[in-house]
């Protein structure tokens, strides 16, 4: 049996059966209410004429529409005696639709119910392995697993609540210390400040005194800044001396694999680069875009080169310039904007896009 725990909705006769679990066996398609496991609706696979997919859209989840033969007179009782609709819609709230569609198609194609009576265990051809293919055995196993999972989940939530109580105490204590610091008006030593900040860092508590989360300048960020200087030297050289902070974030975290940096860790470390006299620096453009540059990199000099490139081509958009020079569009745009700010380029901003021209007012006046 294949188990799809993410099914949200069964649409039957325009009546919604919400929050359920969809099960597929060689013989039946079963929908079971997640909360009340006694409530099941089953459709024999033999009743299915064909199935079709409906892709997800805005505000709509992915669906499978199951078209059925008319019911036989000896069918089991179900939620409705009869219906004018000949199909049932299965709505997948999160994901799983693609996988389930594939499996359901397989089962319908293979028609294993024709050769396999229900409720019997079948020995697989492999020696020493018994697979209970019968529905009853499988359902019982699922039931046990569900009970186990439920038990685990409620225990987990209980433990979580207890843990949070203790965390709350830590928050209260840190507030009390912060108040003492405020009262004393900075009578706390440098050393104590560093300790306090590292405690806040561990707990993830925003620094109540300065209101930055654990504030920049912890030992951790200093070490991180030095590490970054080592890691980023070569990549920066390969990219013309400049990289956006999002590029750096991806590069560093992809390389780490585990124990990743948070975005805030990265920003706080980078803020310390200059004061630690490392060969890289953080720069923030007017647009808010943040980059790391080699100290040896001079963006203003690059602007002169950019002007030449634009002049050669007559005019360029950020996209065109990026492709020519081999830069990201984001940084290409920043360079052109800087060139404009410095008076070397001027813009033609139309609905066709933002295009930069050499500033002839400057050169030809």
């Amino acid at each position, binding site marked *: 049996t294949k188990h799809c725990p993410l099914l949200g909705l069964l649409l039957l006769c325009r009546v919604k059966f919400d929050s359920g679990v969809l099960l597929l066996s060689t013989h039946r398609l079963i929908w079971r209410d997640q909360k009340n496991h006694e409530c099941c609706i089953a459709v024999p696979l033999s009743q299915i004429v064909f199935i079709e997919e409906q892709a*997800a859209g*805005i*505000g709509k989840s992915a669906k499978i529409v199951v078209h059925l033969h008319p019911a036989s007179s000896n069918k089991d009782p179900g939620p409705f005696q009869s219906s004018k609709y000949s199909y049932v819609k299965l709505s997948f709230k*999160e*994901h799983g639709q693609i996988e389930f569609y594939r499996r359901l198609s397989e089962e319908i194609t293979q028609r294993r119910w024709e050769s396999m009576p229900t409720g019997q265990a079948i020995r697989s051809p492999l020696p020493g392995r018994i697979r209970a293919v019968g529905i009853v055995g499988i359902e019982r196993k699922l039931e046990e697993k569900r009970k186990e999972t439920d038990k685990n989940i409620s225990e*987990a*939530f209980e*433990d*979580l609540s207890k*843990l*949070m109580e*203790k*965390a*709350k105490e*830590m*928050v209260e*204590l*840190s507030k009390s*210390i912060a108040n*003492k*610091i405020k009262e004393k008006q900075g*009578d*706390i*030593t440098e050393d*104590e400040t560093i*300790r*306090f900040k590292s*405690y806040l860092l*561990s*707990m*993830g*508590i*925003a620094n109540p005194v300065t209101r930055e*989360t*654990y504030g920049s300048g912890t030992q*951790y960020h200093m070490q991180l800044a030095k590490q970054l200087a080592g890691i980023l030297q070569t990549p920066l050289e390969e*990219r013309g001396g400049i990289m956006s902070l*999002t*590029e750096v*974030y*991806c*590069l560093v*975290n*992809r390389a780490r694999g585990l*124990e*990743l940096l*948070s*975005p*805030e*860790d990265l*920003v706080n470390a980078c803020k310390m680069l200059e004061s630690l006299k490392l060969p890289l620096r953080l720069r923030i453009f007017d*647009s*808010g*875009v*943040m980059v790391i540059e080699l100290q040896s990199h001079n963006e203003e000099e690059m602007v002169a080169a950019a002007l030449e490139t634009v002049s050669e081509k007559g005019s360029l958009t950020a996209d065109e310039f*990026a492709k020519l020079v081999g*830069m990201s569009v*984001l940084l290409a745009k920043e360079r052109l904007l800087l060139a404009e700010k410095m008076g070397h380029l001027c813009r033609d901003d139309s609905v066709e*896009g*933002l295009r930069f021209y050499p500033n002839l007012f400057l050169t030809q006046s």
Partner: protein
Amino acid sequence: MHRRGVGAGAIARKKLTEAKYKERGTVLAEDQLAQMSKQLETFRTHLEAFASKHKQEIRKSPEFRLQFQDMCATIGVDPLASGKGFWAEMLGVGDFYYELGVQIIEVCLALKHRNGGLITLEELQQQVLKGRGKFAQDVSQDDLLRAIKKLKVLGNGFGIIPVGGTFLVQSVPAELNMDHTVVLQLAEKKGFVTVGEIRTSLKWETERAKQVLDHLLREGMAWLDAQAPAEPQFWFPALFPELHGQDGAPEAAPGNAEP
């Protein structure tokens, strides 16, 4: 010890008292810090015990993550602030979201040429799940929103815009003010909007509507269908993931060497 005058003596005594008070003040802070240090160790032990039992739950269950995040927010703790925090180190909750951050950045970059840097949360979720593969952990929309909130600090213009019951995710540093947001919300139902509709629904002057739409056109977030029957229509690729871009290949993913 030489004699002091009454005035000088009083001042000297005051200074002595102040000095003693300062000393005690420092001692008080020292005491509390020592207490915090001890309690922190105790807490760490509790968290370790919790992690050994329930670490899997965090990775496997979006519902549990949601509950966890809500509780942290209630007590004033940000478990995602630092990879060096206890939560990240012991529960691994950091790695889950920071990696998700990387995947979000990559998806947004890959699709930017098509949608101008706007994407629905649903499409983002689909694309991220696709990239993660069949056997990866499930990722809920709440997970994505939390990862995106953290990415904002990188200065790349990450933002979340509520539209019609879902969200649009912005991933470029384009300035989108209230006017732009409202037009996006209006366009969400059909995927496009006209100046006429804006005038009727929002009661704006034509000029204001045109300015907003032109800005969105220039940013590449809207495309103009001037051939539409009644009046020009402004379409938003972000609201229609099936539309394909006509302006060439997407950019290389960040963190890779450029060709």
